[in-house]
């Protein structure tokens, strides 16, 4: 799970299972224990959402990270899988079909796979910009259809179902969130494992080869188009599974599950987490869900901050959070990570204070522009003040400027420490 997607460390055939199984076992135990640590209903709701997003983001990274295909319409495969699952849920209810609920996501996956097979047959001819534009067009087409084809998509209200009408599964009727949590976790582990294993198969390896050098791959006997097509189908399948789980968890799907906003969000999540590593999208999904649920309670402007974070990531850390984490591996291997602690503290703490100062300024401008007339009180970082007075503005400005100045002054120290921690020469100087 911690292996790098681009340069996988090779392991001798025999040892591979025991060595690489460890992260999976730990992750499983961790997931099973989570509800005992966070017992509140809202925590479980957040965790359910997180787990579904993780599957979706991992399936997206099969395209973007492993296959080099940038899609602006991936939500469609999850959404269509989800819509079919709601319909199946309703059919189970109406006709009393003997289908236990935990098997439902498979159907979501199959319908996602079916749609991906159709679309992939013409969209995977080329990668890059052309693929991106086709995915956008197809995505918009299906999202627009969802409002017109009312019989299937339910128009503006969407379609809803009830998960509890199915056959009880060993006595479990999935009335409670916690039961749904374990169902989702089961599918999360199964899908993540399968997606990881897919990247180790011949077609998964060739997906990387085609991403890096399609011409060379063609002269090795592989059709770049078919390699892309198989990745695309597999990705659609797992997106469909995520859609099925969404249907079970929320019991409703609407046009919002298909549109560009949703497709853009999964791109953002995956890229933020890091597309170069298998576990990148997992980090992205966790961080984004937390930002979405926690930050949105604090500020109306959370999307602005997330957007700025995204653009900054693309510009300065194209490896995403996972890339930043893995950057430190060499220093740890050399046993010099300790050298970085102090430089990090003296640059990052001012940086964080500076960012908070900047956010305060932004929030104050926003309040000044958009608060109802006559209301000049606002609360920020647990302090209430008058947004029309001069003192708070001065304070925020001074804090921001001073903090960033300190950060700038300490930057060279960090850079030097980084260089020392990563250089192969012995520490002589």
């Amino acid at each position: 799970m911690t292996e790098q997607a681009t340069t996988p460390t090779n392991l001798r055939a025999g040892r591979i299972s025991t060595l690489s199984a460890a992260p999976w076992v730990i992750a499983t135990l961790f997931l099973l224990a989570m509800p005992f640590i966070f017992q509140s209903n809202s925590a479980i709701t957040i965790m359910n959402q997180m787990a579904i997003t993780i599957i979706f983001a991992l399936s997206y990274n099969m395209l973007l990270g492993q296959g080099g295909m940038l899609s602006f319409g991936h939500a469609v495969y999850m959404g269509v899988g989800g819509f079919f699952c709601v319909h199946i849920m309703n059919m189970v209810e109406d006709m009393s079909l003997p289908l236990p609920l935990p098997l439902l996501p498979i159907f979501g996956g199959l319908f996602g796979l079916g749609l991906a097979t159709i679309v992939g047959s013409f969209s995977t001819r080329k990668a890059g910009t052309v693929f991106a534009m086709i995915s956008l067009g197809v995505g918009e087409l299906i999202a627009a259809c969802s409002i017109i084809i009312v019989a299937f998509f339910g128009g503006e209200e969407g379609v809803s179902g009830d998960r509890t009408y199915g056959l009880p599964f060993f006595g479990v009727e999935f009335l409670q969130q916690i039961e749904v949590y374990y169902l989702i976790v089961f599918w999360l582990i199964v899908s993540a494992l399968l997606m990881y294993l897919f990247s180790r198969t011949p077609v998964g390896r060739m997906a990387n080869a085609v991403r890096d050098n399609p011409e060379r791959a063609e002269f090795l006997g592989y059709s770049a188009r078919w390699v892309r097509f198989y990745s695309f189908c597999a990705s659609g399948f797992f997106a469909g599974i995520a859609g099925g789980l969404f249907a079970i968890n929320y019991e409703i799907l609407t046009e919002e599950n298909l549109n560009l906003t949703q497709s853009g969000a999964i791109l953002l999540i995956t890229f933020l987490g890091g597309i170069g590593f298998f576990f990148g999208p997992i980090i992205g999904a966790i961080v984004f869900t937390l930002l979405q649920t926690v930050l949105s309670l604090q500020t109306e402007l959370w999307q602005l901050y997330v957007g700025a974070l995204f653009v900054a990531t693309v510009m300065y850390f194209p490896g995403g959070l996972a890339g930043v984490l893995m950057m430190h591996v060499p220093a740890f291997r050399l046993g010099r990570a300790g050298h970085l602690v102090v430089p990090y503290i003296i640059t990052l703490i001012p940086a964080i204070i500076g960012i908070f100062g900047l956010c305060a300024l932004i929030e104050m401008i926003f309040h000044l522009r958009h608060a109802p007339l006559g209301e000049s009180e606002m609360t920020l970082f647990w302090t209430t003040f008058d947004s029309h007075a001069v003192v708070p503005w001065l304070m925020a400005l001074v804090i921001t400027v001073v903090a960033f100045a300190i950060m700038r002054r300490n930057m060279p120290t960090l850079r030097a420490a980084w260089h020392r921690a990563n250089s192969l020469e012995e520490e002589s100087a």
Partner: protein
Amino acid sequence: MDLILVNLIDGLVTGLLLFMLSAGLTLIFSMMGVLNFAHASFYMLGAYFAFQISLFFGFWMGLLIAPLIVGVLGAGVERYGLRRVHQYGHVPELIFTFGLALLIEELVQFLWGKNQMPYDIPEVLQFTAFAIAGNSIPAYKIFMIFVSVGIFIALLYILTRTRVGMIIQAALSYPRTVEALGHNVPLVFMGVFGVGTALAGVAGVIAGPVLGTFPGMAFLLGSIVFVTIVIGGLGSLWGALVASLLIGWITTFAAAYNIAFADILMAIGFTMPEDLDDSALRDLWTLTLPQIGPILPYLLMVLILVLRPQGLFGKRDA
């Protein structure tokens, strides 16, 4: 017949508006290989800036100044953003412009809020130019046609008759050679990006009062613009023109003629099922042409891609 004429004019207005966006997008794409996802966001910025300026100095100053600001912003984005991301390849560039589009939408909401702005047609143009069989054609539409055709002619002149245009044309096909000849290609790139986004800005200024100035306007038009240049053939200016007009007319005519699908189906010889509510195909029977109008561009794109992957006028296989 008269209605057809009215729709032709309406479609022309939409098509030319699309072309102002797709022309800039095509120029940028064929020079730099970057599809600027944030292109429509610059169109939105044009509308908002012009609105803000018009509050103080009137519509005409807005038309003059807003595109300039947008162009400078665009050039800045190329210089300080895109050029940095360029080293990672085309896919990260596309992701960058996508992130930029998200960020610009959030910034617009931050500054102007979520509601539509009261950005209106200037009073001098609030009259009926002429009427065709009782259908009045507002003067503003004629104004829009003149502005876009004027810009198109200016663009054509610059590209074919001036030295800068020659360098741009050469840089389109042989960027390395042009650089070797001593021209500052990065500067040309920045200029083209600036001009392309300024064009989008102009489109925003003149479309804002008609189509509405609100935070969603970029994404609403943006996807149609991308579809347009894919249909026309990525990188072909003529293709962009033809596809823009085609889509302008298709969407206008689809919206104007209330043809029910039930009529077509019955004309072919199908019989309408008696109990519509139970039929799985009931939507097919209740559909009307105006309803499917908005999805026609996307359908057209998928068809084109299946039948002619390089687009209508594209030379290279898309």
